[in-house]
């Protein structure tokens, strides 16, 4: 079968196995050695995240100082594999409370084993939703030694039966104070030629939501009329609308969103998971107003010296202000000495990321 993973390994940067789980017998135990000698100890590392050695393919990702390697023996679905790793890492993070690194793994290996068993069975991904898993995988799942028949059955059994219906939310939640937080995070990507022409500019945005609501609420989020999500063909047919609309190139939603209703009514309606999640993502390429203009000039002074002059201008309205502005200037790895002249803020050289950083 194309999607079944044979094993998953967590390795540290030296190539030691931190933890592993073999789901199927069709790969040998020495496969991870093959990975170590053929990928980690050669320059191959970082050249390509999918490699084939022998009859097996290795799909790997580096997350902080850990390599997560999925071994498959057949023609697997790669996108699925990567997505699984990403989701699994998110799950671990929500369990460990933030960081996911070598130490976190070493301190929680029992938990990780449990989770690995739950999220994947015989190589097929199962439920990875932290909400549901947290109900029955806990480190505090102690039962008092002699009461082998607990009186109140824990909630999981009730919800597990409805995993199909709303797999991301459990029933019976109750909060004294019902709260919803909504954040919009946008990242503007700009590519400018050395002459200062804008080559490409796009925005990827996320709507993040934090919910503390009781019961099974059905939420609706209306998008204002300025937002147009139109297919290219329609756009061509009536091009010159007033420049006020924001054309979203593409939108994707969290699995809780009723996509059919979005397509018909343009409202985002959903039963939210509890806690924090990413409700939607969108992408815009047309009509992006840049918040800043950056004017760099680079002079090479001889063979070993370089002068970089960066001017940053804000282009947004006078009433608004920006916080936490950071400018990073990548420099060659061999940089030995740096000198700064700043009109405001502070700058320093950060060798670990080969960048000059201004705050």
């Amino acid at each position, binding site marked *: 079968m194309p*999607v079944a993973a044979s094993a998953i390994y967590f390795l540290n940067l030296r190539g030691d196995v931190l933890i592993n789980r073999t789901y199927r017998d069709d790969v040998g135990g020495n496969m991870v050695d093959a990975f170590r000698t053929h990928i980690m100890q050669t320059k191959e590392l*970082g050249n390509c995240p999918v490699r084939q050695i022998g009859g097996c393919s290795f799909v790997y990702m580096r997350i902080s100082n850990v390599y997560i390697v999925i071994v498959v023996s057949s023609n697997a679905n790669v996108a699925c594999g990567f997505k699984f790793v990403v989701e699994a890492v998110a799950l671990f993070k929500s369990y460990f409370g933030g960081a996911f690194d070598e130490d976190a793994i070493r301190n929680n290996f029992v938990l990780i084993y449990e989770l690995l068993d739950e999220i994947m069975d015989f190589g097929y991904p199962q439920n990875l939703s932290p909400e549901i898993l947290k109900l029955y995988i806990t480190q505090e799942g102690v039962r008092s030694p002699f009461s082998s028949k607990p009186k109140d059955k824990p909630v999981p059994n009730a919800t597990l039966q409805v995993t*199909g219906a709303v797999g991301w939310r459990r029933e019976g939640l109750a909060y004294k104070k019902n709260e919803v937080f909504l954040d919009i995070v946008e990242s503007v990507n700009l590519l400018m030629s050395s002459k200062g022409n804008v080559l490409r500019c796009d925005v990827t945005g996320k709507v993040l939501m934090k919910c503390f609501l009781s019961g099974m609420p059905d939420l609706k989020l209306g998008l204002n009329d300025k937002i147009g999500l139109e297919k290219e063909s329609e756009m061509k047919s009536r091009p010159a609308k007033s420049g006020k609309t924001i054309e979203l190139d*593409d939108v994707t939603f969290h*699995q809780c969103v009723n996509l059919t209703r979005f397509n018909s009514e343009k409202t985002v309606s959903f039963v939210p998971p509890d806690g924090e999640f990413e409700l939607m993502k969108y992408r815009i390429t047309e009509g992006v107003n840049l918040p800043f203009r950056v004017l760099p000039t680079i002079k090479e002074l001889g063979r070993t010296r370089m002068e970089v002059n960066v001017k940053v201008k804000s282009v947004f309205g006078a009433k608004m202000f920006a916080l936490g502005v950071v400018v990073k200037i990548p420099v060659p790895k061999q940089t030995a000495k740096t000198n700064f002249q700043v009109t405001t803020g502070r700058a320093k050289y950060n060798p670990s990321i080969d960048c000059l950083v201004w705050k």
Partner: protein
Amino acid sequence: MAPPAASQRYPSPSQPSGKSEVSDLKTQLRQLAGSRAPGVDDSKRDLYKKVISYMTIGIDVSSVFGEMVMCSATSDIVLKKMCYLYVGNYAKGNPDLSLLTINFLQRDCKDEDPMIRGLALRSLCSLRVPNLVEYLVGPLGSGLKDNNSYVRTIAVTGVLKLYHISPSTCIDADFPPTLKSLMLHDSDAQVVANCLSALQEIWSIEASHSEEACREKESLLSKPVIYYFLNRIKDFNEWAQCLILELAVKYVPSDSNDIFDIMNLLEDRLQHANGAVVLATVKVFLQLTLSMTDVHQQVYERIKSPLLTLVSSGSPEQSYAILSHLHLLVVRAPFIFATDYKHFYCQYNEPSYVKKLKLEMLTAVANESNTYEIVTELCEYAANVDIAIARESIRAVGKIALQQYDVNAIVDRLLQFLEMEKDYVTAETLVLVKDLLRKYPQWSHDCISVVGGISSKNIQEPKGKAALIWMLGEYAQDMSDAPYILENLIENWEEEHSAEVRLHLLTAAMKCFFKRAPETQKALGTALAAGVADFHQDVHDRALFYYRVLQYDVHVAERVVSPPKQAVSVFADTQSSEIKDRIFDEFNSLSVIYQKPSYMFTDKEHRGPFEFSDELGNISITPEASSDIVPAQQYEANDKDLLLGIDEKDDNKGLSSNNGSAYSAPSLENSSNITSQMQELAISGPATSATTPQSSFGFDDLLGLGLSTAPAPTPSPPLLKLNPRAALDPGAFQQKWRQLPLSLTQECSVNPQGIAALTVPQSLIRHMQSHSIHCIASGGQSPNFKFFFFAQKESEPSNYLAECIINTSSAKAQIKVKADEQSTSQAFTTVFETALSKFGMP
């Protein structure tokens, strides 16, 4: 009781020895085992954690197996889980001990907490000990009927695990039908999804030997089942959705309404946050509309923006996977991203594998309207600090030029690269200029003037140097000092480490000699002398060949070495369209990433008839196939266009990128000519005249082409005329081998001379080829050899496939024949046997 801890392994010296710790643990566990004091669970937990942590870092703790099992009588779920984990890890190595666990696992399977029932069932099925399967059936059966969905989910996967340990037990217990009814009636989506994956796996394995399973497998793809899944798709989690979409791809819709229904149903999946779901949906759309051209085009339009979103969001690894797919799409439909080329501009902080794919994308989307911008951007990358990327981008510029867009400007740009005076830039550019000249000879004047100014001393890389030397030879008449540069290079023959460069030097010296004989004569003499004395076999052979052909007749030599050239119109594609189609069929899988169909890389059991050759590791399929098929193709190719034929040959070897094929041109162009000139030589050359066709195997081998169609003693006129130039690629062969029924099995004996000659498989292959029976794969070592042959009817494309196993110690050959036309398979077998019986005869 537990065995002594003798077999402990210490994976690295830095880790604790573990021996004393393990025995410590053992005594402590034993003390706790019987205790019922309060708080004992907590101390047990600590101990268990220790055991598991030892297990994780690789210390063998299997010696405490007995104690662990004794302690497992607990109601603490965390303890139980750790115990299950431990048991699951060591059961396989200790089948006898695992019998101990069966008891408590079976008891737990009846626990009233569904959590424990599920966990116990999972551990029970994960023991993977074949002699315990009998204990699995009961718990699995009740697990499937459990009223808790968690237990059912686990039981369903358990059935699949059981099937992998012992298929017969699983089938005998009638589990597949039970799964089917669960799949169609269970209310829980995860149970249904697991049933689907289990059934797909079981039935596709069973299908090879059971008709019923085959029918069942088909029934999964029937309209009601597919619609049942698709209508419920929103109930499933994202992974199960992928599974269902993958199933839907295989569905053959009855009419166009059917197609549109499915597409309407699935359209919103394109907005799903999970990239895997989006890709799977894209695959469904593309496959469904294959037959409807205009809808297919609309599909490309529709999927464009979701795919671009996927590229720009997510980790670089994910973008990499998506970009590979985009590349596949853009090759099929170049217009699709033509206006969105800016999305493929590289960002400085992207990993090199993403950048590399983006460069490929930029090359692929280039057309008349955007070439200028793309090439401008690519030229920026040529100065990149990452040398690999700089090289790639130069190559990309060259590839775009070869696509015939805006050549004029690109040539200028390439020539500017030469002025950058960076070793690798110059080397890459030279190679490209050479390729361009082969396609657009009209630019030679501009290029040569610049190239002439480059000092060969500045180029260290063999490929760049070879390209420069090729140009020196080819355009000797336009470059005033070409002979002198060559002379200089030849003087430094000893310092030239690359055989490729030396080969090119020989050829260039020859070409130069034909154009400007007086100036080059001395240099040519030196080169030939040095070449003949060269320790590299190819260089030696070529020098010797040039020498003899010059000795024979200078005009013949000129015809051989420097024939008038036609411009190359199209550089051969590295992949046949058939292979591309196959990759497209396997969209959303590793095939796309590796850019080859799955049969080329999946494990042995999927490789079908080629299995053995891999096991023995003697001869791989590819070189074998190429050397046998190439002659056939090459003859045709030679007629048409010399250079084209060469490129094709390279493709078959699977060696070449577009550039790779180009460098080797001069060398191959000679070798293919050699075949045609060989007869002449054999008459005149005193050394070769001694070798008769029969005994010249070694000689043939060196040239790699062989006198394959040279008339060996003609067999008594067979009933069946075979096509001496038959060609079949390994993929097609494999497919046919799987599909066709066995028409004949025959055993015959091989004559003793044949056995004596069969020291390596190649000797038989050559022999059979002279009877128009071609080998596609072979392997084995004395005394057992195995061959796969194929042949085609002379008049029509009807194939015969044969497997032949020869045992040299018993002098027997076993032949299995499969044929497109069953009726003539007997005739073919006769031909085959006749041919085989002549093997080894002088």
